[in-house]
């Protein structure tokens, strides 16, 4: 369903992605873990060409694109098959919550305005913000903005939604409810790739966990394998930082 092969990306002399390949099945939830600077964001951004990788191949659904030959049309096609949820929401500042969701439907997908409005209202209700339809992003809290951000991606009904640390910018007390919402997206059967540092969440929803470090996929597998029987030393070291607090209950 989604396949990336041999993606490479450098910023100047800094090689950020070193031959990354990945396979995601339809409906699967893939969680990407890894230390800061390991290339997780860059990988997601290369998937929908917010960043143009240097080489490799991306297939989403029935669309296959070889990076070097990617034309404007290919990029647009890929983007219209993906949704993106940003770490800092990136809602359109000049649009209300409802318009934020409608914009992509109307302008990019050419959905008639009336239908787009219905879809947007329904999705807004689904994320629990039907009463905030006419609010501008500046009038919404971080948590509410991210709900709209998620609704904007979901409403487009893409083949895959990419989440880049969707809760990292939130106040701690708001993280839980957004994670719940992302779980709800997962239960809709939408294919998702989620970059996160929320380990409990990862164990809960992931069908597959990928551990990245230094621009390579170090290890991948089912959550049980990665969290309880990691094979690679780097994975163990990384997880140790997160798992210790959990064990404290048993001390």
């Amino acid at each position: 369903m989604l396949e990336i092969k041999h993606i490479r990306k450098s910023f100047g002399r800094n090689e950020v992605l070193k031959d990354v390949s990945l396979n995601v099945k339809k409906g699967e939830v893939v969680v990407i873990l890894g230390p800061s600077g390991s290339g997780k964001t860059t990988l997601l951004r290369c998937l929908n060409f917010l960043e143009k990788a240097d080489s490799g191949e991306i297939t989403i659904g029935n669309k296959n694109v070889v990076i070097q030959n990617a034309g404007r049309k290919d990029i647009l096609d890929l983007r219209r098959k993906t949704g993106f949820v940003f770490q800092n929401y990136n809602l359109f500042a000049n649009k209300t919550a409802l318009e934020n969701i409608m914009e992509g439907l109307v302008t990019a997908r050419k959905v008639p305005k009336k239908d787009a409005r219905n879809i947007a209202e329904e999705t807004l209700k689904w994320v629990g913000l039907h009463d905030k339809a006419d609010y501008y992003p500046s009038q919404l809290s971080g948590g509410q903005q991210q709900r709209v951000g998620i609704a904007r991606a979901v409403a487009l009904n893409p083949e895959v939604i990419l989440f880049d640390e969707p809760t990292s910018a939130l106040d701690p007390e708001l993280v839980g409810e957004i994670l719940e919402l992302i779980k709800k997206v997962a239960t809709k059967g939408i294919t998702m790739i989620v970059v996160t540092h929320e380990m409990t969440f990862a164990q809960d929803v992931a069908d597959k966990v990928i551990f990245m470090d230094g621009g390579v996929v170090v290890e991948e597998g089912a959550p049980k394998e990665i969290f309880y029987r990691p094979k690679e030393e780097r994975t163990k070291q990384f997880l140790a930082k997160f798992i210790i607090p959990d064990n404290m209950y048993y001390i």
Partner: protein
Amino acid sequence: MQIDVKAIFESFVSGLTYLPKTLILILVPLSIGLVVGTSIALVRIYKVPVLSQFFAVFIPVYQGVPIVVALMVYNLIYLMKTNDVLKFFGSSKTIADIDSIYVGLFALSLMMICSISEVMRGALLSINKGQYEASYSVGMTKPQTLRKIILPQVISIAIPALINTTVGLIKSTSIVYAIGIAEILSGALVPSSRKYTFFEGYLAAAIIYWILTILIELLYSYLEKRTSIFKTGKTENKKLWSLKCWRSNTSEKALAEMKS
């Protein structure tokens, strides 16, 4: 010194008869400036090769030239070369058939293009790149992103600076008087030269420019309210808020008066 109120009035009326000319001198350079200036700003933001380098040099250099100097240079060129150019193109017209207002329009338009391009470039630079990325991520093209997401935000950010630029333009229209174009200032001075009431003439011109400036500022502040709702909250809230301020101001004043 005696101020002749009647002379002010006469000059005012006489100046106003040239209002259409001044409006042309404002609206044409403003429109050209907005369209071309915004385009140049985009060319520079998107780093279009050659053009962006050209404008990066041309605009600061040109802005260093005082508008009067530029106007005089264009006027000399106009005086010396118009007939040659007309002949070259096989026209039977002469300089007498070409209104010198075009020289004024040219100088003022170029001035506006430069300053508006700088205003717009600044506003464009202030837009978070996340706005572009979010727009691309929902599948919008570059032109769609510009039209629907970026420019509406840019315009609302740019309005305060555009007010300044336009007020500057209104004042600058008076300098075309120097190359003999009849506009508000020269109009206001027509009665003056008959009756030696120059002070009253300039005063009348000042009042007209002042009124024009106020009108432009009102227009912009209306536009600003219309376009910047998203920055401050809903218009209703804003109105309520300013009403509240006004009330508290007036009640404070009333209190102060009662005490004194």
